[in-house]
């Protein structure tokens, strides 16, 4: 323990683990400490027994539920978007992919205001909204095309993207440096719902659609379209949960000679007179390092950042006969203004095909930003949608934010997970910290 390290990392959340893995692969000597007896810090993947104990200490889950080890429940599930930043970080960690298997999350629903439910939608009664299934792959897009005429337009558009920058495109007179993505879609005469569906397929956000798209972005779309990862969905989730990525990272660390200690009795981060980090004191000794990365629970007072919002998350265990087949994973987005709220509610549900639950069960996580004094009730809308909930675990999270550029003491505090269902913010943070510390770019090609 009384040794010198290049970097000490406190906590084993996803950001900390990936950072430790990146540094280990660079040949740095890393020490990872975690107070808990399990990996994952705030966002572990736990079995049913541990989950139950975390919420109701001392009691056991219902008898009729299958054995504990068949569950792998993320306290904070997040999806991985194909070809986005987090995906690229995972790809760059080549060794990681020897261990880790990903599967697509097959369904994507978004709320629409009642009335006018169309044929393709699934109506939820007693609500001011219904859920519309939206395409998330080129293949499924076919189901949403209404008529032959529209079909031709789609074909033209995809043909255009696929062959962008080749000779046959001249006739269309599209200047990507002057038009937005929506403008381009309009040139092909697509209807409003058609435009909407294409935006969903490419998982673009509002800003990307409404600003000038530019040459580069179109090439990226082209790559995305021609990418083998496009199939079968834009959203992935690792088998056995995010915790499995964390545990794979730990193994890579060990292979590269770094040390990970669980159930470590961390006392505090220690600073010198100039307010620079010099190491970490534990109850077994002092480990020295010029850089410390930690999550908020280890940060000294005054460095925890500021409280920005509170989030309520509920984990629901649902009995479902269909679990275990292709259809048991998905993502539901309920727009805030459809349920008279400011913030939207997100539901991620996963099942046996991602090895999250035994067959016959689905695990759903609903989350939203807290707006009232009774956060549990705010999720009622989502719970009503889910149906047969067997067990339910609700937890409030306080989200603190830190400005990394201010850390002149060489202590980097990783931010809490926010309510957004993907890991792009985390990826951004990983890149930032990595680049500050190792003074080189994380991505070679800078895409």
């Amino acid at each position, binding site marked *: 323990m009384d040794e010198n390290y290049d970097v000490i990392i406190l906590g084993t959340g996803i950001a900390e683990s990936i950072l430790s893995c990146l540094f280990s692969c660079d040949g740095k000597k890393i020490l990872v400490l975690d107070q808990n007896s399990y990996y994952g810090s705030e966002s572990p993947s736990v079995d049913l027994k541990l989950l139950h104990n975390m919420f109701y200490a001392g009691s056991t889950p219902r008898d009729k539920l299958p054995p504990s080890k068949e569950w792998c429940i993320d306290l904070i599930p997040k999806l991985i978007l194909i070809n986005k930043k987090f995906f690229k970080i995972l*790809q760059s960690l080549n060794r990681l992919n020897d261990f880790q*298997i990903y*599967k697509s999350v097959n369904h994507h629903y978004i709320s629409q205001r009642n009335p006018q439910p169309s044929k393709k939608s699934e109506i939820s009664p007693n609500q001011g909204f219904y859920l519309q299934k939206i395409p998330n792959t080129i293949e499924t897009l076919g189901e949403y095309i209404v008529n032959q005429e529209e079909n031709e337009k789609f074909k033209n558009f995809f043909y255009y993207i696929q062959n962008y920058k080749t000779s046959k495109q001249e006739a269309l007179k599209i200047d990507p440096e002057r038009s937005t993505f929506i403008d381009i879609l309009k040139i092909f005469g697509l209807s409003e719902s058609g435009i909407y569906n294409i935006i969903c397929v490419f998982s673009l956000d509002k800003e990307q659609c409404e600003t000038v798209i530019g040459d580069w972005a179109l090439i990226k779309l082209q790559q995305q379209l021609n990418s083998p990862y496009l199939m079968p969905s834009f959203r992935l989730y690792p*088998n056995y949960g995010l915790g499995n990525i964390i545990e794979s990272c730990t193994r890579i660390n*060990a292979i590269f000679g770094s040390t990970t200690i*669980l159930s470590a009795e961390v006392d505090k981060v220690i600073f010198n007179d100039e307010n620079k980090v010099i190491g970490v004191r534990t109850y077994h000794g002092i480990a020295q390092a010029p850089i410390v990365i930690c999550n908020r629970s280890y940060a000294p007072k005054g460095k925890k950042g500021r409280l920005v919002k509170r989030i309520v998350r509920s984990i629901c265990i649902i009995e479902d006969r269909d679990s275990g087949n292709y259809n048991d994973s998905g993502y539901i987005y309920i727009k805030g203004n459809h349920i008279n709220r400011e913030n939207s509610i997100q539901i991620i549900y996963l099942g046996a095909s991602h090895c999250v639950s035994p067959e016959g069960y689905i695990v759903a996580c609903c989350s939203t930003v807290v707006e009232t004094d009774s956060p549990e009730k705010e999720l009622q809308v989502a719970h009503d949608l889910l149906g047969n909930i067997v067990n339910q675990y609700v937890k409030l999270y306080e989200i603190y934010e830190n400005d990394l550029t201010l850390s002149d003491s060489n202590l980097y505090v990783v931010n809490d997970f926010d309510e957004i269902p993907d890991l792009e913010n985390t990826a951004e943070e990983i890149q930032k910290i990595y680049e500050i510390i190792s003074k080189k770019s994380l991505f070679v090609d800078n895409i």
Partner: protein
Amino acid sequence: MKSVENFKIILLGSQAVGKTSLLEKYVKNTFTIKYKATIGVDFLSKCIDLDNTKYSLQIWDTAGQEAFQSLSTHFYRGSDACVIVFDITSSKTFDSVSNWIDEIQFHIGYDRKIPMLVIGNKLDLNEKRVVNSQKAKQWCEEHGIMYYECSAMTGQNIEEAFINLVKAIDVFNKENPRQFNPSFHLKRQNPKKNMCLCKN
């Protein structure tokens, strides 16, 4: 056509009992007397031919993680068999075998069984032996575990132990068929194919 079976076997045991030595002797037929805590070894693959079937064994070392009890469920997941190694010249390491079995059951679930093999290593130091062979064998039989005594230095018995383990896995898998779970890797160029180094 011959079929190929892929097995993941995990190697466990207290520190310095010779897990890595045993693995290297078996797979690469090399042995170094100097003790070095394991760094850098991930898993080694070995192909064997048995009764017209090719077996590709992926044998996972602990990568030194046992020192801090930081082995994760991920390490145990998907394993077809466990090999627990102890040192016949140290009774403490034999006592810890039952702890390791507990540990395995904790990670794979108490309701699941997998084939296990206990290896008493350092048979070349037989004159310094403190663990009684008969006793160890009896203990293992009581727990339904195979028992072998080997030497990573001379290579004695290692081959035999692993071949019998593979046979046991085969029998076990026929009784408890594995489920096929389609999925895909981020890495594209058939990573599994490169792992088996045997030429046909």
